[in-house]
């Protein structure tokens, strides 16, 4: 009996303490983001979970950019990154955004890597008037949904329809494919968005879609569907998925004797893709991407050498570049805004024009999407080789 009472007392005490802590937390809240000479920037990324490789790469690029920016600072202020891990889940991305806006009072948020997890933050950012920049979310819905602009949301990457269109043009003009098959991840808006744009453009170019199949993320056996695709005899297969499944599909396709070119989007870009598919199976596959470390442009080569110096000679991938660019995209806006006030940063972001960054020259359109170029890469023995650059 005594024990029970003690436990009860303890429980109520701890509850009361929790409530008090909560009160004091919200009591001291004011709208200034960062105190004195720091500007607090929230980072809401996939640091673990299914697409952890994207989140970690973005974080690396962003940290490098922050380090460089903080050498001089912005008007004497330094950027401080506050990271939360959304575990590659939309619900965690939402609670991460809540924590960053209400508890940490950040000036802006960088994240998330995927479209789904970025969309999960939209409502919170809009309600709290905190600008969010998704470094690699490519779904148009992130910034513009239901005929309405989400005015606090921005992105560093290009959008899905653009990638799909570029891929379709590449298939009909460079590969000279007459027929194509589409194999999508039925649970991903990203995959569906690319596929729809691809289909539209490919048919406009006079090509024929001979088969459309779908899989569910986390599937491991694709042989039956691939056998079906093989009998449709397409010249080209468009596979706009993420690297885990794309790697398995390409591997199993080659084993089934399906030797036609495959093409995907930036979702393929991960070292894990090569580990899963194997270097040989990936020959004769292509992706559209944001940038290539093999591009001879001077700005890109400077970034590559700075990145290699910081991360043990690792060659930066597109997500590293997008993370890096997001840092400068934001820093440029803060500089022009002349303050760390969220609304002023948002207004400055909207006015971004001809900003020279690693993944292209940025000018923001009225839907908050940057207008910039796309790069096509080819896999040769497991290495991404710069193929061509396509302007919008």
């Amino acid at each position, binding site marked *: 009996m005594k024990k029970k009472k003690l436990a009860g007392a303890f429980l109520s005490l701890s509850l009361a303490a929790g409530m008090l802590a909560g009160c004091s937390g919200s009591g001291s809240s004011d709208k200034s983001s960062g105190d004195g000479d720091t500007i607090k920037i929230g980072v809401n990324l996939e640091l*673990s*979970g*299914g697409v*952890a*490789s994207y989140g970690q790469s973005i974080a690396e690029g962003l940290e490098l950019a922050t380090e460089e920016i903080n050498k001089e600072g912005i008007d004497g202020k330094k950027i401080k990154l506050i990271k939360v891990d959304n*575990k*590659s889940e939309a619900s965690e991305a939402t609670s991460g955004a809540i924590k960053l806006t209400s508890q940490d009072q950040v000036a802006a948020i960088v994240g998330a890597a995927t479209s789904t997890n970025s969309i999960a933050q939209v409502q919170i950012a809009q309600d709290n008037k905190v600008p969010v920049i998704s470094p690699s979310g490519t779904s148009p819905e992130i910034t513009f949904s239901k005929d309405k602009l989400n005015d606090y949301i921005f992105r560093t990457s290009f959008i899905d329809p653009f990638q799909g269109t570029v891929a379709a043009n590449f298939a009909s003009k460079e590969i000279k494919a007459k027929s194509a098959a589409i194999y999508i991840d*039925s649970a991903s808006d990203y995959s569906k968005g690319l596929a729809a744009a691809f289909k539209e453009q490919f048919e406009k170019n006079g090509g024929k879609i001979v088969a459309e*199949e*779908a*899989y*569910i993320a*986390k599937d*491991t*056996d694709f*042989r*039956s*569907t691939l*056998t*079906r695709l093989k*009998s449709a005899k397409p010249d080209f297969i468009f596979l706009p998925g993420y690297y*885990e499944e794309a*790697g*398995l599909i390409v*591997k199993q396709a080659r*084993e*089934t*004797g399906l030797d036609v070119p495959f093409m995907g989007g930036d979702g393929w870009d991960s070292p*894990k893709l090569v*580990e*899963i598919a*194997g270097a040989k199976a990936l020959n004769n596959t292509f992706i559209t991407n944001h940038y290539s470390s093999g591009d001879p442009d001077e700005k890109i080569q400077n970034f590559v050498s700075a990145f290699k110096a910081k991360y043990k000679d690792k060659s930066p991938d597109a997500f590293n570049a997008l993370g890096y660019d997001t840092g400068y995209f934001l820093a440029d806006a803060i500089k022009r805004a002349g303050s760390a006030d969220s609304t002023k940063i948002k207004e400055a972001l909207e006015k971004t024009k001809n900003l020279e960054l690693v993944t292209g020259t940025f000018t923001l359109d009225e839907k908050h999407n940057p207008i910039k170029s796309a790069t096509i890469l080819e896999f040769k023995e497991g290495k991404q080789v710069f193929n061509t650059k396509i302007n919008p």
Partner: protein
Amino acid sequence: MELIQQLINGVSLGSIYALIALGYTMVYGIVKLINFAHGDVFMVGSFVGFYSITVLDLSFVPALLISMTVCALFGVLIERIAYKPLRNATRIAALITAIGVSLLIEYGFIYVRGAQPEAYPNDVLPTDKFDIFGVSINSQSILIFGVAVVLMIILQIIVHKTKIGKAMRAVSFDADAAKLMGINVNNTISATFAIGSALAGAAGVIFGIYYIKIEPLMGVLPGLKAFVAAVLGGIGIIPGAMVGGLLLGVIEALVSAAGYSLWRDAVAFVVLILILIFMPQGLFGKNKKEKV
């Protein structure tokens, strides 16, 4: 030709289900417990194999043996800690515990190493492709099927020809009577868990080699599918698990071949429901009349 190709696709998928289903069926046959943690033992086996190959630099056979040994010990550990204290509790209590153990292993594993996937090296076993009349067969598919059949035969020999097998059959028939006859029931049950878990470990390594990508939640769906396979063949019956696994694999392949790949998982569970309604004893089960 395409149909034959699809049947081959189905058999190699089904062989994996069969290997996992063998473990389910054995444990159920002896203790009447559906060990939902079995799919997670399969996952652990896959990771043990992965680390044996990449970190210890071992080849296929030693990696397989290490994985089977570790899983056997792990299975016994689970049984001793989680199920033994509930031996005389209600069936539902044991079932819920099994689900709890399953979640504990999955998320404990994620806590320790994170949720990111790993990729098995591509060159553990040669992948030769045979083309026979336009049908291509992968050497690894043949290997998987071969391993599944061999392990099933070994299992049959253990159960029907050895002393521990006799003890298992006795315990499954009547545990109390077996105890009165001087059989150590606890050790017999532990042995069952050890053998079943070793099979799951073997399935894990083979899965890794065939499908390359492994991750901490990989055991969930194959585990459930194997359960369907075991029920389909008649739970508690060893050849039934084998046939059930192969049949389920072929059904799934045919569903995909017909263009309904998104319905594949749904069909597997519809099969489960239909079997439970119309043939609850499974394809190989006898309709036992219970004495009152």
